[in-house]
């Protein structure tokens, strides 16, 4: 039965908060803390990518002020797991609403568990991308990006929403490790998805 416990990764700078969550979760049995990171340095990002994590609880304070408003999107680059914010100090609504759920340090244990379950359930319904192989649709979109098309133009071409285009682009970046349009163009050319003439 031990194996059916969901793995939780804590990314919180406060050891008190980390230990507190760890103790609450181990008392209740449904979740178990598989790792605690105190910050998001490059090496912890790499570790995060390779961890088998079902759910992440993060204190948005680990992001500096500028990147905090994109915190959820940044986390999406490292993990498919739902990401819950833990509010330790007063944090703007703008920042908190990005996350799949928000728990407060004053929440009682049953409320924390309920929020974690609901974040997991919501995530289970979302489509999941697996492996590093690009899907056919992702390849099509990559070709458009390499040709210099804008998100709006790509959305029109395939009759999908801009939001869907953005999701595809995020997945392409996650799978290839390449962020810039110029870099994606190189990838497309090296993999013979397009030829030189269609770029110039």
């Amino acid at each position, binding site marked *: 039965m031990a194996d059916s416990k969901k793995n939780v990764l804590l990314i919180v700078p406060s050891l008190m908060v980390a230990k507190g969550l760890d103790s609450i979760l181990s008392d209740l049995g449904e979740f178990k803390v598989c790792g605690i990171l105190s910050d998001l*340095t490059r090496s912890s990002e790499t570790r995060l990518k390779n961890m088998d994590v079902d759910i992440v609880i993060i204190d948005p304070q680990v992001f500096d002020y500028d990147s905090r408003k994109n915190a959820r999107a940044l986390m999406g680059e490292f993990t498919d797991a739902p990401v819950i914010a833990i509010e330790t100090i007063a944090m703007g609504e703008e920042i908190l609403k990005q996350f799949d759920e928000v728990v407060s340090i004053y929440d009682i244990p049953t409320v924390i568990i309920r929020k974690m379950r609901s974040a997991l359930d919501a995530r289970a319904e979302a489509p999941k991308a697996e492996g590093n192989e690009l899907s056919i649709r992702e390849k099509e979109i990559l070709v458009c990006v390499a040709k210099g098309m804008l998100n709006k133009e790509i959305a029109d071409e395939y009759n999908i929403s801009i939001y869907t285009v953005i999701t595809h682009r995020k997945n392409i970046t996650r799978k*290839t*490790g*390449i*962020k*810039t349009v*110029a*870099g994606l*163009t*190189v*990838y497309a*050319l*090296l*993999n013979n998805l397009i030829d*030189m003439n269609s770029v110039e």
Partner: protein
Amino acid sequence: MTTLKKTIQRDVLFSEQMRLADLIDLNYHLLPILSRLGVSVSLSDHTVADACAKSDVDVATLLLVCNVYTFDDYVPSGAALSEGNPTDIIKYLHNSHSYYLEDAVIAMQEDICKLLEPCGEKQQAVIWKFFNDYKAELDNHFGYEEKVVFPYVASLLRGEDRKGFSIAQFEDNHSNISEALNDLKNIIMKYLPAECSDALRNRLLIAIYRLDIDLVKHTRIEDNILVPIVTRIEENGRQ
């Protein structure tokens, strides 16, 4: 060595009383940094203060740079910043720019040239275009600092009033130059044909990782030393 570094990090930073050799032992990545600051490694047997005095380098500035470069969680206090010399910091930043553009990037270029030998003409052209665009981006980024930011600070130090620009704008303009370098890393690591030499590929990858870290530290020195010092000068000038 790592444990020692951890202990030191928690208790004290580098100080002017320690020997230069010990500073290097604690973080040998400071070797090129010392050169850029103008302190020769041949003075290693002296204390940091003596080595600086012999090299006509401001010791407070050297300590600020070495501490920020080494300890990721170190943010200099107002007192430490007030001892730093903005002219020396600019000189250091300028020397770093020269190193990036004239040494690091050129060495990478030579390695890429050899590495791509087994590739087809088309593949080579694609990668060269990407690399040259990256180089242009770096040139552009540093050029802005050299042509706009540094002269602004120099004139500020001469007591001239420079309306229409403030160091806060410089922070806004800090474009992210690490994304393209990260892409280059991934292209070389994952997407070049297997015929390309492993030894060359490794050498290039190590150079990219080093440059990436150096650029991160460089930004930190700009953000945590140059910007607060210049902001303070601006505020004093306004009073």
